[in-house]
């Protein structure tokens, strides 16, 4: 009801003629005026969201704080305020850092840097320092700072990767495809993976989804990029993509996406021989699908698990 009233009042104002209007009855609004007003409302909405996020943070509700900050970023992106997009990414980085999620914090700070750099903000040096400090902490010895604003970076980690595939990887691979196929749009994106230059096509699609803010597609594409890496037995790269996808799905509260990400993380852990993580991720995934009463999804997940445990 309230929403209807708001829309009606906006519509009345847009229609230009309303005998009840009082404060600005002599003012003729131009399109530019309306755009300015809309921008101001959105700016105010984003500021409120930042305040809410701060309260969530103070209450130690980190996921909600991050989710709310994401909403604020979307609004600032809409009104094309690069400085404030940078500021919110900076805040998100601080929240993630407080939560000991250093890799996410680095990603946030890098995004903040991108915006600060574009507008030549004084904050850019400060944020660069934050990135450097965190990267030094995260990977001692790797002092080279690279700013990659696209896909999550896949610099080699110290986890050893087997250079030979499991004996029956092709069977697992088929099941992985079926698992990814549970997600909306996955079949279409999977067709990019079958093209002549799969990585190029998938990265292009990822950039596109990122550009238009299609979060669900972005997360699914990360899974498929990870899958292509897995096919090339770049297991650690694959894990990074799967983990980034898991994080995105959690942010948009997409349970099915979370379940599929966990299944793929479990599979990559299996290839890495990390059996403890395998069962933990598979258990969580099955629980999600069961809670969602997604019987066909659960069946496909069980088949993947069986193909792994039967190896």
């Amino acid at each position: 009801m309230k929403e209807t009233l708001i829309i009606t009042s906006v519509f009345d104002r847009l229609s230009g003629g309303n005998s009840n209007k009082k404060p600005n009855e002599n003012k003729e609004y131009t399109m530019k005026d309306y755009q300015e007003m809309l921008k101001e409302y959105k700016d105010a909405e984003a500021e409120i969201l930042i305040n809410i996020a701060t309260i969530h943070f103070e209450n130690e509700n980190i996921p909600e704080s991050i989710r709310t900050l994401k909403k604020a970023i979307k609004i600032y992106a809409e009104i094309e305020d690069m400085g404030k997009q940078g500021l919110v990414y900076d805040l998100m980085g601080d929240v993630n850092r407080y939560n000991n999620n250093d890799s996410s914090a680095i990603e946030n700070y890098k995004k903040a840097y991108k915006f600060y750099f574009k507008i030549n903000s004084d904050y850019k040096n400060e944020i660069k320092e934050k990135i450097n400090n965190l990267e030094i902490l995260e990977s001692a010895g790797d002092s080279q700072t690279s700013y990659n604003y696209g896909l999550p970076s896949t610099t080699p980690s110290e986890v050893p990767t087997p250079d030979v595939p499991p004996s029956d990887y092709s069977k697992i691979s088929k099941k992985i495809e079926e698992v990814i196929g549970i997600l909306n749009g996955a079949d279409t994106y999977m067709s990019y993976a079958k093209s002549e230059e799969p990585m190029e096509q998938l990265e292009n699609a990822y950039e596109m989804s990122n550009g238009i803010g299609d979060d669900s597609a972005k997360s699914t594409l990360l899974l498929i990029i990870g899958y292509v890496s897995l096919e090339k037995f770049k297991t650690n790269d694959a894990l990074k993509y799967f983990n980034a996808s898991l994080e995105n799905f959690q942010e948009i509260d997409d349970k099915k996406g979370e379940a599929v990400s966990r299944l793929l993380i479990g599979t990559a852990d299996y290839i890495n021989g990390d059996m403890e993580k395998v069962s933990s991720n598979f258990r969580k995934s099955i629980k999600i699908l069961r809670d969602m009463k997604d019987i066909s999804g659960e069946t496909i997940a069980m088949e993947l698990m069986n193909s792994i445990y039967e190896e």
Partner: protein
Amino acid sequence: MIPCIESGIPGFDELTRSNDGTGGIPENTATLIYGPAKTGKSIFTNQFTYKGLTNDEPCLYITTDNGYKQFKNTMEEFNWPIEEYIDNNSLYLIDTISDISKGKPSQSESFIQSYINNPTDIMVKIGSGVHYIYKNNPRFRSVIDSATTLLAYNENMLIIRVLKAYLMRVNEAGGTPIIVYTQDTADSIIETMSKSMVDNIIRVDGEKLYIEAMKGIERRSSPYQITDNGIVIK
């Protein structure tokens, strides 16, 4: 002087003639045509498309309302055959609505299938389409018919961003895009945002065509008729 391209609609280029003598659709600008259902919006853009094709200006056409077959039949009803242009790749058609099982022709170099509920895939295909068509002729036209269906199938703000990205891509490549939208099918804020993204706004109501905004000219209007040969401005 603002260079214009021929609209293909009899009387329209005269209606939009500016003081410097040019008329038509300002080249390399973005246009929104909107109005209630069944008032000739699609006919307008089809006429615009066909005129471009006959003038050797290729067209990137994204159809969300009619599948390829229906689109082709509609064009033929007005005596605007498109088969030749599909065959010579000057009409690059992205069909987001035909179901594969309904016997649509197989994909070709310039006939591409996408999915109405997959904005990322649509944008990927638009990206390839712009690249393909630009390489053949940097002066090209583009149409999305219609934004209404995209909005109906997807989250509205996401589609606003898709439309913005689409207009940017086409404009950057030098093309002249038109978006079709059926009035009052999305909430008024979305409608206002759609209008704010374009340079030219044309409204049709079944009786009159209104130029609500256009680069280089003031507001104008004129009655129109839908004839067997398409829209004619009186």
